[in-house]
């Protein structure tokens, strides 16, 4: 890339790196759509044309397009249900195309539990529009009033005198290349699909050895590649013997661009052996040495401070009991079970990348900058990978594969990272510290709340080449863009930093740490997890100080009826009021949050037992209640919340990336262990509270904070000590109880 283009791009860094605003599709015909789009819901606002979302051919085959990606959260299934419901066809009649830079709307990244809100809402309304247009076309054909035309659930429109026409016939005389109209009513009558249990469309292939993942993609003539890097992020290989490796059997090419080094071979095992040979000389840290105590360093680092809540002018009752505490969480891995993978092919000036990125369009922009190709020359196709839980190595491996593919034109290249590369190089979930100084009055109300949230960025997502691992390895290097905070109300490190409780006198300051010594980016719920853990631990500390029941104390300080409903539902179903500690080291914990204070509500009640000899914790009964707005697939919501609970127990009870001066030390599942079956809860019971007609709120990140906090509160109840630094690991608990 020439210097002037490089400079121009870096000047626009902030705009590009954090803009999730989708651009119009090629078929999108900007400009003629007028102001109506401002009234359109969900992603229709950015992409208002109906045929960007739904197409019906003359045979009646229906294709629905979404810019969101399946990450294992069941989004494909839920979106099929939404479309089937509003079009009034069986779900099997719908084919869904997802996240593809040449086929689907640009819906930014699949993140933040936005898929149902953005894409689900768009498809719901687009389908209502299409159904209405089909009914109007039928009415015109039969010379009857449009309200006399009905759907039959089978892809036909029916007229008042027994007329019938297929959607395909009607669509043939109709253009869907028109903007959605706002306010088109939803289909009346009982739901056939929406809100019902519906089996995931992707599970059969996954359970029977079908081709389900980018890892399973096999293209004709495909080569296998491995990238050779140092021990972990920040390290560079010492003197790799490229010539010797080029001579190894089966090696097609060693690809070297600046400090980027990879090997391509005819067979996967040859590529792995060649990679190991390139790494034989070891590696050394090229980046600045890591501080000895990352958490202390975080507190001492320069920050940009913003007061995100200030009601201190309001007079409040005199605090009766005060509690001050500092909570922290370490750096966590996303920890996909399958290391990140991509397949790339460069042929006839066109780069095609099959990728499990969360954002095909932002990735394409970053790849264009990295490779000096035009965005139109790059086609990113989302193909499922192992669950990512945020920004893992998906984009990085796609960039690695793209660079390799450019070096072997014509041949598709499959690259999968090794286990230690995923642990060692993926952007980590950000370490955080939250300080809270709070008090209650004599009536059990929260009378004072002062909080400081210390957090580096939670967003290192591409859009720019400098956000890709390979970017800074190029010569000259692409600079990693300076991170910026994600503004409230969604927030980044300060996500969920403002309690939903009624606070008479409160101030919350978000301290955005400007630089992070380790590579970080979005991990499921961003700062929401730590803030909910801190707030919900403090709520329990206040309840304890006032001698109040934790659930009653929460209810007493909340006004939102939907918050009250999930808390009561979880407490009732758990039998909170009847809980008995009994002898030994049994404990009960409760926690609640509304994700981002604007999405799904979730409350969790948990029982744990602590082994007084070893400090080992076992979660027993866990009950959750969730309100994610109108429920599309109750089983899908339960699956997400169950998973959130188990994952959060792992995060909270055992996980922390280790570091030494050279970099990361937890480079496999022994060095960075996660929860196994032996530590899975006794039972997990999730109650879904449906809110028909309410907006979709998304369920993917609602459970982590409440589950983590309930675990902390239950352990505290069990051992009689409050541990405030995550993880609440066995050695820490053992030390606390003096076992």
């Amino acid at each position, binding site marked *: 890339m020439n210097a002037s283009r490089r400079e121009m791009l870096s000047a626009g860094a902030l705009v590009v790196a954090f803009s999730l605003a989708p651009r119009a599709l090629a078929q999108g015909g900007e400009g003629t759509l007028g102001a109506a789009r401002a009234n359109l819901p969900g992603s229709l606002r950015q992409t208002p044309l109906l045929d960007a979302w739904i197409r019906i051919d003359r045979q009646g085959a229906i294709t629905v397009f979404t810019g969101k990606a399946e990450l294992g959260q069941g989004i494909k299934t839920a979106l099929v249900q939404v479309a089937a419901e509003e079009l009034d066809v069986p779900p099997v009649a719908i084919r869904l195309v997802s996240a593809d830079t040449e086929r689907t709307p640009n819906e930014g990244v699949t993140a933040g539990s936005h898929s149902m809100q953005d894409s689900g809402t768009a498809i719901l309304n687009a389908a209502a529009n299409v159904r209405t247009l089909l009914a109007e076309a039928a009415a015109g054909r039969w010379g009857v009033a449009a309200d006399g035309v009905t759907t039959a659930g089978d892809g036909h429109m029916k007229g008042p005198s027994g007329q019938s026409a297929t959607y395909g016939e009607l669509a043939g005389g109709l253009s869907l290349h028109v903007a959605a109209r706002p306010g088109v009513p939803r289909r009346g009558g009982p739901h056939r699909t929406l809100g019902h249990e519906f089996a995931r469309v992707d599970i059969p292939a996954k359970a029977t050895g079908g081709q389900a*993942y980018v890892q399973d993609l096999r293209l004709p003539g495909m080569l296998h590649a491995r990238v050779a890097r140092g021990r972990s992020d920040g390290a560079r290989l010492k003197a790799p013997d490229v010539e010797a490796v080029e001579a190894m059997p089966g090696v097609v090419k060693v690809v070297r661009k600046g400090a980027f080094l990879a090997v391509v071979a005819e067979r996967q095992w040859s590529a792995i052996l060649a990679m190991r040979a390139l790494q034989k000389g070891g590696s050394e840290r090229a980046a600045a040495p890591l501080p000895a105590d990352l958490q202390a360093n975080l507190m001492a680092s320069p920050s940009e401070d913003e007061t995100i809540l200030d009601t201190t002018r309001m007079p409040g009752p005199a605090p009766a009991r005060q509690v001050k505490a500092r909570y922290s969480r370490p750096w966590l891995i996303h920890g996909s079970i*399958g290391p990140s993978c991509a397949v790339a092919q460069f042929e006839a000036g066109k780069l095609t990348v099959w990728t499990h990125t969360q954002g095909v369009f932002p990735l394409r922009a970053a790849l264009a900058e990295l490779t000096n190709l035009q965005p139109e020359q790059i086609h990113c196709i989302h193909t499922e990978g192992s*669950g990512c839980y945020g920004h893992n190595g998906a984009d990085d491996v796609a960039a690695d594969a793209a660079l390799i593919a450019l070096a072997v034109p014509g041949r598709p290249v499959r690259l999968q990272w090794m286990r230690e590369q995923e642990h060692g190089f993926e952007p980590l979930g950000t370490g955080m510290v939250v300080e809270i100084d709070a008090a209650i009055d004599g009536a059990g109300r929260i009378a004072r709340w002062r909080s400081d949230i210390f957090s580096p960025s939670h967003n290192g997502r591409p859009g720019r080449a400098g956000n890709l691992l390979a970017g800074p390895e190029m010569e000259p290097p692409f600079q990693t863009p300076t991170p910026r905070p994600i503004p409230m109300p969604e927030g980044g490190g300060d996500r969920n930093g403002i309690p939903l409780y009624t606070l008479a006198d409160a101030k919350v300051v978000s301290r955005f740490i400007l630089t992070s010594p380790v590579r970080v980016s979005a991990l499921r719920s961003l700062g929401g997890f730590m803030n909910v853990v801190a707030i919900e631990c403090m709520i329990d500390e206040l309840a304890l100080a006032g001698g109040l029941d934790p659930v009653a104390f929460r209810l007493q300080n909340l006004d939102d009826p939907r918050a009250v409903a999930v808390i009561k539902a979880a407490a009732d179903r758990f039998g909170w009021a009847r809980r008995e500690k009994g002898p030994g080291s049994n404990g009960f914990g409760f926690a609640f949050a509304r994700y981002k204070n604007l999405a799904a509500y979730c409350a969790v009640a948990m029982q744990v037992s602590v082994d007084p000899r070893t400090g080992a914790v076992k979660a027993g009964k866990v009950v959750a209640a969730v309100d994610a707005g109108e429920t599309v697939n109750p089983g899908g919501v339960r699956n997400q919340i169950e998973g959130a609970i188990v994952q959060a127990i792992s995060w909270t009870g055992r996980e922390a990336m280790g570091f030494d001066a050279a970099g990361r030390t937890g480079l496999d599942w022994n060095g960075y262990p996660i929860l196994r079956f032996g530590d899975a809860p006794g039972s997990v019971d999730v109650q879904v509270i449906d809110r028909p007609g309410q907006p979709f709120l998304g369920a993917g990140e609602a459970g982590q904070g409440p589950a983590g906090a309930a675990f902390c509160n239950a352990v505290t109840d069990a051992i009689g000590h409050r541990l405030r630094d995550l993880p609440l690991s066995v050695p820490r608990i053992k030390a606390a109880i003096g076992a």
Partner: protein
Amino acid sequence: MSVTLTVNGRQHVLDIDPSTPLLYVLRDDLQLNAAKFGCGLGQCGACTVLTDGKAAFSCLMSAAAAQGREIVTVEGLAGGAGPGRMPKAFIDEQAAQCGYCIAGMIMRAEALLRTKPKPTEAEIREGMQPNLCRCGTHMRILRAVRRAAGLPVEAEA
């Protein structure tokens, strides 16, 4: 060099480096999708297959060592008209989120039930211990194993 493998009841004669881990032979030479690369270290179980009826990490076993053994992958569990007992139980229980670990889980569970047709809850959890799931699908996986064993799907809490 030539290696002879028996996979899902079929014999394959392959001209490959006999030190190649079985996993890559299954995936790349035999084009079987089920066994997955997870760690290459025997720590996660995503690559689990049956060798002579016992669960094995196919990432740690060389093709040479796999010769002469009956190797079974998820593809080999298919029943006459549809998925076999264990895959069907996982589908019926919707026991997957991303699903990357699921093929390994199915083979681990299959091996468990072949030795202990009616395992206790503790035996199921201990039996599944070598396999990791990051999505937190553990409770559903346990239900699927109980279902396949003909046990009550909900265990005592």
